[in-house]
């Protein structure tokens, strides 16, 4: 399998089959908290994609070239969360100074991202992927981008569902969050149908 095909397969698998929100349950808080309006859903997702790719691009070499050779692999949780926190702060400052228009669009979502488990999750899972699937730097970054795009897809789809829910009149105890979770269950069910499709396409 050529590298391009392998990368495409990783990307599509992360978007559809192993969708972070709907299948792996990472990043549920922003999924429930910020998906009410379409434009905030898109803004949050773009910020997540950006930070995910950046965080993976930094943590992967750090683990492979610094922590692992020195027998410090067990420190990855502490090291990664600190890097993510610093990175988010750095991105915020740089955007504010140099690209104020982008800062205006994404800035409000950045503080929420430090404690978003999808970001720490993707960096840690990519480390597992080194031994399990033989991922290199390129594969890891593509995997992070796919995870981010999958997050965006779930957020955007669900923002549409939630706008319909506004008008709906569920039984009293189900109002608010419970009916939102039940609808999330149905959206998640529809994603289960992607299982196996990607492999079938690429492996014929």
């Amino acid at each position: 399998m050529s590298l391009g095909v392998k990368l495409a397969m990783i990307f599509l698998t992360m978007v559809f089959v192993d969708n972070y929100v709907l299948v792996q349950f990472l990043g549920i808080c922003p999924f429930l908290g910020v998906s009410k309006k379409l434009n905030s859903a898109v803004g949050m997702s773009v910020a997540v994609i950006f930070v995910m790719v950046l965080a993976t691009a930094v943590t992967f070499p750090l683990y492979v070239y610094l922590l692992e050779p020195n027998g410090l692999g067990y420190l990855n949780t502490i090291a990664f969360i600190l890097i993510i926190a610093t990175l988010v702060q750095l991105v915020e400052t740089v955007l504010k100074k140099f690209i104020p228009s982008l800062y205006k669009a994404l800035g409000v979502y950045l503080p929420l991202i430090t404690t978003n488990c999808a970001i720490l999750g993707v960096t840690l899972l990519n480390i597992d992927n080194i031994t399990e699937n033989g991922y290199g730097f390129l594969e890891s970054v593509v995997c992070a981008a796919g995870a981010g795009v999958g997050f965006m897809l779930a957020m955007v789809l669900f923002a549409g569902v939630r706008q319909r829910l506004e008008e709906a009149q569920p039984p009293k105890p189900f109002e608010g969050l419970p009916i939102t979770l039940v609808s999330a269950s149905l959206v998640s069910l529809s994603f289960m149908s992607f299982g196996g499709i990607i492999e079938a396409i690429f492996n014929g």
Partner: protein
Amino acid sequence: MGKFSTFSKGLLKENPVLKLVLGTCPTLAVTTLAFNGIGMGLAATFVLICSNVLISALRKVIPNQVRIPAFITVIAAFVTIVQMLVKVLLPALDEALGVFLPLITVNCIILGRAEMFASKNPVLDSALDGLGMGLGFTLALTVMASVREILGAGTLTLLPGVTFQIIPQSVDPFGIMITPPGGFFIFGVTMALVIYLEGRKGRKIKLEASCSSCPAAAGCPGACEGCDGKGGE
């Protein structure tokens, strides 16, 4: 507030999962087997007690501006300890929880209690609060996991190897309940049940993913729904 109510409020009255809607990711992800729910809950309880105690002891030393990174570092250190312990003592649990064990670091319950309680209260109160909240988390996870396992596999696994057959094997289990959609569904129904029971007692609660105990509230820009950017207080 008495010492006992400091401890007991986390169990039901302010249950972190069912009332405050915190820590939803592990609640949905690991509750496919009753034992995983118990294990995850106890691991988080250990981290919560230790981090609450240490943060409370250091509350006058940590400068206000850098308190969130300081809290995260303390929590991540205890999570690393738990990770190592579980890997040695209960390898099966380590396998089952996977990435959600290190992800206790960013569990909103732990950072939320550090920010809301431990950074303002003495050590003993913070330890009791951590114990109560942790056990409340464990309780919610165990209930969710038991329901999902009984419906989805027909069994109940309280310890590794100790499995009870609840629904006879001749009945086909609802396999969907231990898949991701089943997780969302059972969580939604459990929450609706809590609201219904509270409503019958004359208390009205409306659950929203609120920021009343959101750890990001301090630097909150008001991005979530229903949030005014003032930390919900």
